[in-house]
């Protein structure tokens, strides 16, 4: 049996790519190294408490907004119940040492009003910033469904200015700059490195609207799985790809799984980390220039993540997340600061069953993967004692950091468990255990969906952007090259 396409990696990019291609009549196989699809957004359960490990909220899922249209196109919407976050404040942002706090609302008008209340003398900076974010967001292909935007200046905007340079031009107010940069934590690239255009595409989606999903990432995963079944996509789990087999004309002829089994195909879409791709293809598939470029790609920060089972959901985390930093300065995102002065992001989960009273809370602080380097060769579950002692120490400090920030937590914590960059590496199969994969930074040239090898395409967070939205857009973008962009955009327009 020969497939039209084999999609490598069943994260959100791979799942979406497989569905789009299958809906367009292609015979598709989806291959995933983990035992089940979507290992990150599926979340996990410990002692009866669900932790939504990869899905914390998403932007642009309101009725008629772009992600809503894409979910409908993918056939996911009927199986999902959207839960709007609080329009008056989806994030509580707090700058500890400055004693500053602001509930960040969604909807451009609400944001404008809130910012003007806090910074009455900064109306021109606020207006220009918001207008620029909105215009930039609306000019990117597939965020805007008008085919005229296919050749818009997207790659150009991705070279600058940086968010920091742009804000420095608008205002000297350190607090306002902090408010408008704090969502860098949602893509992992600090303000001095991130192109304004890229930041606008991520932050801009949350400015439109913010939603969770009832049952969280697990519900989303189930919706994907049902749709794959309906579309007869063959899903192979628990086996990584060991090799992409090339035909003499240098296009993929199939893939070989780790157990030796082969799947024949005429094309491949790789959604794995670009470095991993190089391990799957013969050296001759790409020229040295491209291989070197992939090797040089800089990675986003890693993180320590604390999973807390709490007896009650703290009021401040109901349909609202917490973003906290120590002072106004976000340079480098502070991965090397003492733990209790690093930025902290806390979110809860939205249980499927309303009778569930225990809450799985997640606290995340940036971390360097160098911290766990001494144990990087060890195997999950069999690491040396020193590693577990190190993890205990981190868990203790992170717990203290969280209890100080959310006083309601004190006395309610049932148990807590910590993840490091090694956990991230092994769960998400990102070779570096970073939070958001390859950085999207000024001066770095991330790979495109097309490669020099005929019918070998790329999708995933390194190609477009991280997050549910970035992953899904990358799927549509790559499928646009296969199906035809105009045709695909026309199909999506029906849902908008």
């Amino acid at each position, binding site marked *: 049996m020969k497939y039209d396409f084999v999609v490598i990696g069943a994260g959100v990019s791979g799942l979406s790519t497989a569905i789009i291609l299958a809906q367009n009549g292609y015979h598709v196989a989806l291959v995933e190294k983990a035992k089940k699809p979507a290992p990150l957004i599926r979340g996990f359960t410990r002692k009866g408490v669900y932790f939504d490990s990869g899905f914390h909220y998403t932007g642009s899922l309101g009725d008629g907004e772009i992600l809503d249209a894409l979910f409908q196109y993918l056939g996911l919407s009927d199986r999902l119940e959207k839960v709007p976050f609080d329009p008056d404040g989806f994030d509580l942002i707090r700058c500890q040492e400055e004693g500053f706090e602001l509930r960040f609302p969604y909807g451009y008008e609400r944001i404008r009003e809130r910012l003007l209340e806090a910074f009455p003398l900064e109306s021109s900076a606020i207006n220009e910033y918001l207008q620029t974010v909105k215009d930039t967001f609306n000019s990117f292909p597939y965020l805007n469904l008008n085919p005229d935007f296919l050749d818009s200046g997207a790659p150009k905007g991705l070279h*600058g200015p940086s968010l920091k340079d742009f804000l420095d031009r608008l205002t000297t107010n350190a607090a306002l700059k902090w408010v408008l940069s704090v969502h860098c934590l949602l893509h992992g690239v600090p303000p001095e490195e991130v192109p304004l255009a890229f930041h606008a595409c991520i932050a801009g989606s949350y400015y439109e609207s913010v939603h969770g999903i009832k049952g969280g990432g697990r519900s989303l995963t189930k919706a994907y799985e049902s749709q794959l079944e309906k579309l007869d996509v063959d899903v192979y789990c628990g086996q990584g790809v060991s090799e992409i087999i090339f035909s003499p004309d240098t296009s993929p002829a199939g893939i070989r799984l780790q157990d030796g089994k082969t799947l024949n195909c005429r094309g491949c879409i790789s959604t794995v980390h670009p470095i991993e791709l190089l391990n799957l293809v013969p050296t001759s598939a790409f*020229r*040295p220039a*491209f291989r*070197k470029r992939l090797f040089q790609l800089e990675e986003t920060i890693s993180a320590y993540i604390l999973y807390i089972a709490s007896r009650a959901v703290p009021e401040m985390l109901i349909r609202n997340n917490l973003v906290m930093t120590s002072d106004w300065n976000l340079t480098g995102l502070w991965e090397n600061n003492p733990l209790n002065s690093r930025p902290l992001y806390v979110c809860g989960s939205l249980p499927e069953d309303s009778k569930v009273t225990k809450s799985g809370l997640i606290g995340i602080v940036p971390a360097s993967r160098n911290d766990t380097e001494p144990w990087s060769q060890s195997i999950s579950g069999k690491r040396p004692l020193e590693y577990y002692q190190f993890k205990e120490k981190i868990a203790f400090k992170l717990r203290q950091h969280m209890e100080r920030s959310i006083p309601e937590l004190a006395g309610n914590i049932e148990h807590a468990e910590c993840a490091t960059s090694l956990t991230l590496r092994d769960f998400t199969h990102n070779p570096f255990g970073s939070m958001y994969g390859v950085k999207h930074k000024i001066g770095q*040239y991330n790979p495109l969906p097309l490669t020099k090898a005929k019918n070998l395409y790329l999708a995933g967070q390194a190609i477009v952007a991280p997050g549910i939205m970035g992953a899904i857009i990358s799927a549509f973008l790559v499928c646009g090259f296969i199906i035809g962009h105009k045709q695909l955009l026309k199909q999506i327009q029906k849902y908008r």
Partner: protein
Amino acid sequence: MTDQEIIGLINTSLAEEFELSSDSMKPEALIFDDLELDSLDIVDMVVVLENAFQFKIREDDSIQKIRALGDIHDFVINKKKELNN
């Protein structure tokens, strides 16, 4: 660096990174037609030049006008001069 050294470094870097024969590295060689590179290779070319000369090219308007290998030579020579001033 003299202009000749710059040209030499461009030619060896591009020949090595794109697996081109050194005989084909003539100033009049057209990037697309003679060296058989395409639009996907252009980004790789930018990165090769950035690495070889330790400067950032980004969106320099003059890079859009490049058609032949000689245009790359001129572009880098001018860029080096600009940076030295």
